[in-house]
């Protein structure tokens, strides 16, 4: 993302704001599908989050969403709660980093 949008500060800010507003919704969605034991939807939702987060260079979050996606595809959700918890922690870490660096403040208005 930095390589593509590097000099376009407005775009970088927009995309970070988007991430901060969007990821909790996706996490909630995954959590809901997990509670419903809906493996197919969980896989699709994790895939979507993975596709988004990969652009931010957040490798750990990407790997965890990929893990959730594979669990969903195989229908084996026994460990999904643990992975989802790790993913939540990872997103909190990302959010703290962004706030600490004064990135993505304010509402996202496309």
């Amino acid at each position, binding site marked *: 993302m930095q*390589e593509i949008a590097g000099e376009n500060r407005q775009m970088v800010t927009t995309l970070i704001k988007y991430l901060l507003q969007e990821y909790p919704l996706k996490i909630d969605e995954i959590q809901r599908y997990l509670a419903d034991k809906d493996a197919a939807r969980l896989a699709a939702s994790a895939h979507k989050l993975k*596709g988004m987060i990969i652009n931010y260079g957040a490798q750990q979050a990407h790997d965890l969403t990929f893990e959730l996606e594979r669990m969903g595809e195989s229908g084996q959700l026994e460990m999904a709660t643990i992975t989802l918890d790790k993913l939540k922690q990872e997103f909190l870490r990302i959010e703290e980093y962004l706030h600490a660096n004064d990135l993505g403040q304010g509402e996202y208005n496309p």
Partner: protein
Amino acid sequence: MKILIAEDDFVCRTLLQEILAEHGVCHVAVDGLEAMEAYKNALKDGHTFDLICLDIMMPGMNGQQVLQEIRKIEHDKGIGGNEMVKVIMTTALADGKNIMQAFIKGSCEAYLTKPIDKEKLLAEIEKLGLLEDDN
């Protein structure tokens, strides 16, 4: 160059647009159905796309289905060779099966895995002969 970006993820779409806007007029579609509609409208207007960046996993109609449908329309209308739209598939998957299906069944020209790499994308477009008149 007339370009269609078919991508359901806002971030990928925005980044693709940022790269490609320097090289042509970008149209966007947020799912497979919209992509098909955009393709058919362009065909009807007699000015089809030179390049389509097509995400594999999209809601409604996925990228492979879109690609197959486009190739079928081209076949039915006798559009062949260089007149066929150039398609670059994009995917977050390092998924050989999906990509090979796209190459074999739908005959796309190239594929890229995400995150989108600007240099790789432009290199593929150059290989397709679509950047020749940019300078």
